[in-house]
């Protein structure tokens, strides 16, 4: 009988999720299982994700991978899965419950704090910075914002965060937002873009205004972001290991189906990359186009 593992993610069209999907597909090919990958249009659509989870459960899968938009909302369905003996692997961010047998995720708070450290280093420990974040309410948006802001507040008293604005991860909207921020704060020293779309938007905005002395720190990867780092437009970025997340999720699911022991927490890690190390093999391995 064919082993079927649906992955319900937080998104679908974005590069990050496509990289997770690629990792999952890779593992599926390796272990000889079938996976499907689905996610709602935006990270606000908690109920849509629940509907996807419900449809996935109806297909009587052997295991399920789930990246919860809101862990509480999904608990009744997850409990159903548990009752049916379907192991649940959480990925990307955890679920506040003991139902998932394993969690493959990135510590977004710590990763964003690292971005704050790098920002401080690059602007010399003082001055004004701003954030362009993709989402005001989603877990990843909140963690990356808070990770960055809290770190600045704790460790760098001379750095002022002038504004945090949200562009929905939409490249164009983030571009316009960046231009407004730069217009309102001509003396701004740096901007942190909290996901790929935001980071590219920041780069575009700065370039359209001809602002060359801005320190831009991004998050995630993608061809454009890598290019911006090579061209020196972006100082550097944090990357997670989305391919690894996808791969580890499926791998853990396969193990759980077989009844093997799986570690409860699988830290897939995060990395700082810039011009100097972008071509290092271990960095290149976690970057995607």
């Amino acid at each position, binding site marked *: 009988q064919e082993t079927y593992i*649906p992955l319900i993610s937080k998104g*679908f069209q974005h590069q990050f999720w496509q990289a997770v999907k690629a990792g999952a597909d890779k593992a599926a090919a390796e272990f000889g299982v079938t996976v*499907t*990958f*689905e*996610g709602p*249009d*935006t*990270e*606000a*659509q*908690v*109920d849509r994700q*629940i*509907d*996807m989870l*419900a*449809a*996935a*459960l*109806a*297909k*009587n899968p052997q295991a399920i991978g789930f990246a919860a938009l*809101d862990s*509480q*909302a999904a*608990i*009744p369905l997850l409990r159903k899965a548990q009752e049916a003996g379907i192991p649940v692997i959480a990925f990307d961010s955890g679920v506040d419950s003991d139902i998932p047998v394993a969690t493959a995720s990135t510590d977004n708070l710590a990763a964003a704090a690292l971005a704050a450290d790098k920002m401080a280093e690059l602007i010399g420990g003082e001055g004004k910075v701003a954030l362009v974040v993709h*989402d*005001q*309410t*989603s877990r990843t948006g909140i963690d990356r914002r808070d990770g960055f802001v809290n770190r600045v507040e704790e460790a760098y008293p001379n750095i002022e965060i002038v504004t945090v604005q949200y562009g929905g991860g939409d490249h164009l909207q983030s571009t316009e937002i960046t231009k407004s921020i730069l217009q309102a704060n001509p003396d701004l020293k740096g901007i942190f873009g909290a996901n790929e779309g935001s980071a590219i938007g920041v780069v575009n905005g700065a370039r359209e205004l001809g602002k060359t002395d801005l320190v831009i720190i991004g998050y995630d990867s993608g061809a454009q972001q890598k290019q911006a780092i090579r061209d020196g437009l972006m100082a550097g970025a944090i990357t997670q290991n989305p391919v690894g997340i996808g791969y580890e999720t499926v791998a853990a699911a396969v193990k759980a189906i077989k009844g093997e022991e799986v570690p409860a927490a699988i830290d897939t890690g995060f990395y700082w990359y810039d011009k100097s190390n972008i071509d290092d093999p271990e960095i290149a391995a976690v970057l995607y186009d």
Partner: protein
Amino acid sequence: MTTEAATPAAPSPAAARLSGAHHRLLAFASLIVLILGFSLASPNFMQTSNIIAILQATSVNGVLAIAATLVIITGGIDLSVGTLMTFCAVICGVVLTYWGLPLPLGVLGAILAGAAAGFCSGTFVAKLKVPPFIATLGMMLILKGLSLVISGTRPIYFNDTPGFTEIAQGSIVGVLIPSVPLPNGVLILFLVAIAVSFILSKTALGRYTFALGSNEEAVRLSGVNTDRWKIAVYTLAGSICGIAGLLIASRLNSAQPALGQGYELDAIAAVVIGGTSLSGGRGTVLGTLIGALIMSVLLNGLRILSVAQEWQTVVTGSIIILAVYIDMLRRRKL
């Protein structure tokens, strides 16, 4: 709109009524075809648990679509249903979780918040003569912002209100008839549908809803206070969005303040697929229910068949056009 016959005198209107019923029966056609198709394609589709999942997935969009139906019959449009739903959920969260008041007050709060917002939209449309598209677009943005402000851009959980999740997720029917574990959310959808059908066909409010959409100027020239009735329709629609807010909050056990935008299109699509005309004057709640069901069956079925997500949207778009085209064909024939 069928009116209970007093004397079936002349044959023509009776025939018209018959063909009306006929038509409505036939309107199920697309839905039935979809269901049959998916049942044949996958054994997982026709399971009780999946049918309940489909109905559950219909409940929120169905209630929103019923609210939108009311406004659309008056010849207006309501873009604010999605964010209003969220706003009501947030208000409910404030009442229950932040203020710690008992459950009935939370329910009341959500419905009143919806009615108040609907009243505002209605006033903008009726008194300030702002076109419904703009009035409700503005309200959509205002409510979206207010939901974030009030909630502190953070979900509000209902963990302190035991029983809150029962509103949508419990099953009174299941307690009475254990083999039919119909969730309360679906029951509420049906009750709302019956209530609004009743209002539309039996009350003055319903009569004026159709009259306004049919020829507002004529109604006004007949000495009817059109403004008041229009505001009443928007207010009713708003309070129905309040019910949707309760349903979604109960399903998610939380008020998610960022949710809601984009839901208006799904709701309006359900209304139009259900045969209600965007130019007003005609429409049925039953049609809207079928429209909402078509949309959830489609999505669920494509997921069950593991159609790749990018193709899901292509197929959904095509089938929506096809379903309405077939409906048009049939109507022209009848």
